[in-house]
């Protein structure tokens, strides 16, 4: 059992959860449709990229191995690198799906600008679709991906070949685009509220 790993993940989750609970009601953070919208691509698209056998072995298997290493033989450099790639695909797909969901919610919200009292809640639900993948990557996938990156380097892999296609950086560019769109929609929202 990897005690520091489990305790670390739990402390991070507790920290975020308590911090959010201090702000107010906790139920506002739960929206089933947003959750499905993020989880489905997060599990399906890595299957497209890596095939389901690899997703099972290097995705879920990597998580299990991180939590409970047991006595099993350590992975070789290429296996660690493969786990790193599967985990990065999962995170990238979750964030991209969240970005798409947020944009859908924002467009739909701005279609109904007549009633300012529904705009705020609608936008907050739209932002939840982005919150879930960010929490998942921040609290689970990013630590896992760093863990397997370190493990691959320790097992003798060349650091320069570990993330060759720059997907992680690309996803950050997508996030900045979403930020731009949300900023514009806020501007529009304020303009419409001022005109009422």
């Amino acid at each position, binding site marked *: 059992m990897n005690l520091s790993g489990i305790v670390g993940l739990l402390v991070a989750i507790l920290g975020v959860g308590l911090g959010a609970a201090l702000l107010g009601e906790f139920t506002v953070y739960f929206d089933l*449709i947003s959750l*499905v*919208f993020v989880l*489905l*691509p997060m599990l*399906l*698209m890595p*299957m*497209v*990229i*890596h*095939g*389901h056998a690899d997703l099972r072995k290097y995705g879920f298997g990597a998580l299990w191995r991180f939590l409970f290493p047991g006595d099993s033989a350590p992975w070789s450099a290429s296996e660690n690198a493969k786990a790193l*790639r599967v985990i990065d*695909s999962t995170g*990238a*797909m979750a964030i*991209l*799906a969240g*970005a*798409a*969901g947020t*944009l*859908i*919610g*924002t*467009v*739909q919200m*701005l*279609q109904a600008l007549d009633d300012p009292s529904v705009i705020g809640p609608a936008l907050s639900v739209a932002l939840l679709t982005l919150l879930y993948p960010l929490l998942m990557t921040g609290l689970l996938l990013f630590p896992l991906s760093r863990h397997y990156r370190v493990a691959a380097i320790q097992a003798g892999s060349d650091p320069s070949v570990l993330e*060759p*296609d*720059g*997907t992680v950086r*690309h*996803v950050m*560019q*997508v996030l900045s*685009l*979403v930020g*731009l*769109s949300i900023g*514009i*929609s806020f501007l*529009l929202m304020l*303009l419409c509220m001022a*005109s009422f």
Partner: protein
Amino acid sequence: MNGSAIGGILCTGLMIVCGILMGSPLLIFFDLTSVLIVLGGTAGMIMAVHGFGGLTDYLLGGWFHLLFSKAPVKAERCREVISVAQTGGRGAILMAAAAAMIGLTQMLTNLADPRAIGPAFAVCLLTSFYAVVLNLLVFVPMSRFYNEAALTAEG
């Protein structure tokens, strides 16, 4: 036939359509200006960088190969497809950001006329939506899939 690839992409696409249909008709997510800017801009960028073959052979051919074939691909071809997919993904993001500025300019110059705001804001947000969906369903899966294929081909 690559069952898991077709199933995964179909399910994700269907899920996006259902997500739209839950809140509004599908038609408000179609805007000709945005389609022209994102698709035209991205296709043009790929053609300019990789030639006509980049669009037909590497992008479409690579995409259909991902969906329908399990035959191994040569490592050089994989590298080429990866770079085409990356050009496409970044090009779509750049085009969407430019289009957001186009829409914002239109919106702010016509503030007095509330009816002009609608189409302009559609250009702002729908281009970003198209770019993100293209990245989610086409460019990022392609670049990651062929990255794996290249590593397999190199052994």
